[in-house]
């Protein structure tokens, strides 16, 4: 059976890194979720696409709207695997996806050279796989399996 993967990130570098990982999703049914409608241009026609609002962890109202939207997408799509390169949308998606029995993968942004991101630290006890892109940041919570470059 073809697995379904839901790949989610916020904009800018998070999305560019998610796109660098896309070749790994080949053979899966792919669902992408991000903050900018225009990013659809990077995807082929078979992938599904959902736009979400962006939110930071300081903006409680946007976070609530974002969570409801992500809940709706996940309830509808029921992915086998959920993967994120950050930040807030990925954290929320992994928490919700777990409730639906999805396996979850967090890839911390390569921008975090000195320490793992705050969202990364907070998701580490929930996600099935937590990856850092820096060897020197590998620890009991975060595995290093290479970088997206």
């Amino acid at each position, binding site marked *: 059976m073809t*697995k379904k*993967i839901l790949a989610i990130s916020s*904009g*800018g*570098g*998070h*999305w*560019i*890194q998610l796109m*660098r*990982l896309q*070749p*790994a*999703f*080949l053979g*899966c049914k792919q669902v992408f979720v991000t903050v*900018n409608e*225009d*990013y659809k*241009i*990077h995807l082929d026609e078979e992938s599904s696409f959902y736009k979400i609002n962006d939110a930071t962890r300081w903006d409680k109202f946007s976070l609530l709207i974002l969570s409801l939207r992500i809940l709706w997408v996940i309830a509808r799509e029921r992915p*086998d*695997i959920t*993967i994120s390169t950050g930040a807030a949308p990925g954290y929320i998606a992994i928490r919700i996806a777990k409730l639906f029995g999805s*396996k979850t*993968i967090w*890839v911390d*942004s*390569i*921008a*975090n*050279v*000195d320490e793992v991101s705050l969202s990364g630290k907070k998701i580490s006890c929930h996600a099935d*796989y937590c*990856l850092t*892109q820096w060897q020197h940041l590998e620890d009991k919570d975060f595995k290093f*399996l*290479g*970088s*997206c*470059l």
Partner: protein
Amino acid sequence: MIFLTVGSQMPFDRMVKVVNEWASLNPDVEVVAQIGDSIESFDCLSTFSSLSPQEYDQYVLSADLVIGHAGMGTVITCREFCKPLAVMARRGDFLETRNEHQVATTKWICEWRCVEEFNNVEELAASIAKLLENCSEMELGAAAESELVSNIRTIIREI
């Protein structure tokens, strides 16, 4: 043409001011600038607040050199398109981003050939001169497929 980008989130006027000053001293060079929702005006740059991903890629592709903040979107795009890059790090203590991660990124990417850091107009002039002389193209394009991709593929297969 030189393409300046501050990334998709916040304006970065401290950097754009430096580039505008450089452009005023080099009127024969065209500088196209994506500057975010800035309220300042920069008379020596052709400015856009934001660009679509296609327009953005097109400007990076046709630029001789990119000037940008040290965000990974900018860094990875330049690497994929083999473009020399002059960077200024956004600083957390100036509230230009949420913490000092761009300072750390800058320290790391400046070890690459064809990436130079600047913090003022003198350093920018030196960076541009050095990049244009030494790097018609960035030495390393991003690898076709990273180790991380094959490892994640294995994880997905095993799930």
